[in-house]
């Protein structure tokens, strides 16, 4: 489909500011939409007992969950970078049927409910699992360990990194890489000195997105890693367990939720679209 400009909207003429073109009747649903997104967060913030917040945040339960979340989140993000950058490059530089199949497979965990991912991971790495059987024989137990948390987070976050980075790589194109090759640079040099720096801003955005996804991971972790204090109880799991427990524990859940909102806001600041300096 090609976009065609309506009659009277010849190139170069500007009859009205863009906002005036929105039909008035659409403002109401737009406002309701904003309300639906913002009001719950506002309600949560209003529920916070600000006097007790410092104590709630520094409670052993909260600090432990925060520490575990940061450690596993960083580990999962690193794993995503190590595996995801090569995967994104392979996808971006290939075309045809196989690359379409591969892309669909990579996208699958993105549209799958994380719970399903957790069950699937359990059937691979569990004692009765295909791979887990061998690992257990070697004395390696993965389910319900911190390693399982990292694997679950990597499983759900990797597609975000790969697809977002693949887009950046495709946009950057191969023309600079071709020039670098004619100047005598081998593939590895081209990758290190041209390909990666060119997608720098895109890679940063993809990494932050990946980290945010890892940090918020709940479903796959709950099923594959469990909810053991200090081992697999990351912030989302802690929020769940404390919120559904006794009434006094709810302040811990709210404090942790507040922390996650702060982290999310910080991530949005980093991701704020900036002009990619130097790239024409």
């Amino acid at each position, binding site marked *: 489909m090609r976009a065609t400009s309506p009659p009277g909207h010849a190139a170069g003429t500007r009859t009205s500011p863009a906002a005036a073109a929105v039909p008035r009747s659409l403002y109401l649903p737009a406002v309701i939409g904003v309300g639906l997104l913002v009001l719950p967060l506002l309600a949560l913030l209003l529920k916070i007992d600000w006097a007790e917040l410092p104590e709630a945040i520094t409670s052993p339960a909260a600090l432990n969950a925060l520490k575990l979340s940061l450690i596993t989140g960083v580990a999962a993000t690193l794993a995503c970078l190590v595996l995801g950058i090569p995967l994104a490059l392979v996808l971006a530089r290939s075309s045809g049927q196989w690359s379409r199949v591969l892309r669909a497979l990579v996208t699958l965990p993105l549209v799958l409910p994380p719970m399903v991912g957790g069950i699937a991971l359990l059937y691979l790495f569990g004692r009765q699992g295909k791979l887990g059987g061998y690992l257990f024989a070697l004395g390696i137990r993965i389910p319900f360990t911190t390693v399982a948390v990292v694997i679950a987070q990597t499983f759900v976050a990797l597609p975000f990194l790969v697809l977002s980075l693949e887009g950046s790589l495709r946009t950057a194109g191969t023309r600079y890489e071709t*020039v*670098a*090759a*004619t*100047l005598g640079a081998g593939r590895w*040099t081209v990758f290190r000195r041209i390909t990666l720096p060119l997608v720098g801003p895109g890679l940063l955005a993809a990494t932050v997105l990946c980290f945010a996804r890892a940090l918020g991971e709940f479903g796959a972790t709950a099923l594959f890693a469990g909810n053991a204090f200090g081992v697999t109880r990351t912030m989302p799991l802690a929020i769940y367990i404390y919120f559904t427990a006794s009434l006094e524990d709810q302040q811990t859940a709210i404090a942790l939720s507040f922390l996650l909102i702060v982290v999310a806001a910080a991530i949005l600041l980093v991701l704020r679209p900036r002009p990619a300096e*130097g*790239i*024409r």
Partner: protein
Amino acid sequence: MSYLRSDLAVQRSEFTVDVPLAVERGEVVALLGPNGAGKSTVLHLLAGLLGPTSGSLELAGRVLSAPGARPVPVPERRIGLMSQDPLLFPHLSAGDNVAFGPRSRGMGKANARVAAAEELARMGLDGMADRKPVQLSGGQRQRVALARALAADPDLLLLDEPLGALDVQTAPEIRQLLRTRLAAAGTTTVLVTHDVLDAAVLADRIVVIDRGAMVDEGPATRVLSAPRSPFSAHIAGVNLLVGDVVGSGEGTVTVRSGNEILVTGVAISGLATGAAAAAVFRPSAVAVYPAEVAGSPRNHWPATVVGLEPAADGVRVRTSVGVAADLTPAAIAELGLTIGARVHLAVKATEIRIHPH
């Protein structure tokens, strides 16, 4: 044995691109032709960016591509490529862009930086090494791109429309710089252009390409002054009528062209009746009349206008007999010329040169 010898060919959807090349060391060869003739395809074959369907390539005594053998990969060919888009690495400074080639070939950081600074100085870009590409003008970027290509010390330099993206003020400057730098560095060069001026100024030899095949080839001065194909005449901006000599007079010969029109002009060398000959004359030498002309012109042809297009100084009128005439816009208006108009063309015999063909 030529320094560069190639008979690489590749099958394209429309036609086969098959332009054999033999280039001597230090020679500058221009591939001239219209858009889509396959010029850039030839360069991509040489650079190894495109796989050939047949043929082989030798450069500086090395076989880079041969049937049945694994082709030498792009980075190891020592063939530089510069296109109309300078494609400076945006994240590197001008100096680091130029140092990229030497660094990739194993030169140390400090030495590469010195080499880059020297190459930039030769391009008239002293003190610009720390600038990022966005901080440079279009002409400066193209200079850095040339410096970068030459700093890699290629055995062969490929220039793909190197002046194509520059404005009319900058292009002559860069053209002159290319000429002096290529001569000083002695770099063997294959240049692709659709601009006759580039070929005239830069090239020792011109290869004219149309639809993937060579249609004319020779020293630049010969191809531009005495084109051997209608096509090279078209791009050289002259009229060319090819046929057989049917008669001769006092220093003149008459040729019956392929499309059955008679052309009388000054013979460049002895031409016997029956010999193949080519008549060459400038579009500005062609007069256009609305009706048959009374009087002396020896060459006088009825024709129909088939095209009107902008020319260097005025309008080029293309006609059904394959002869173009250059007129001023005022003359076009006065004659009321439109496509389909019936006209009479006249050219003085003294304006026409007849070459052996």
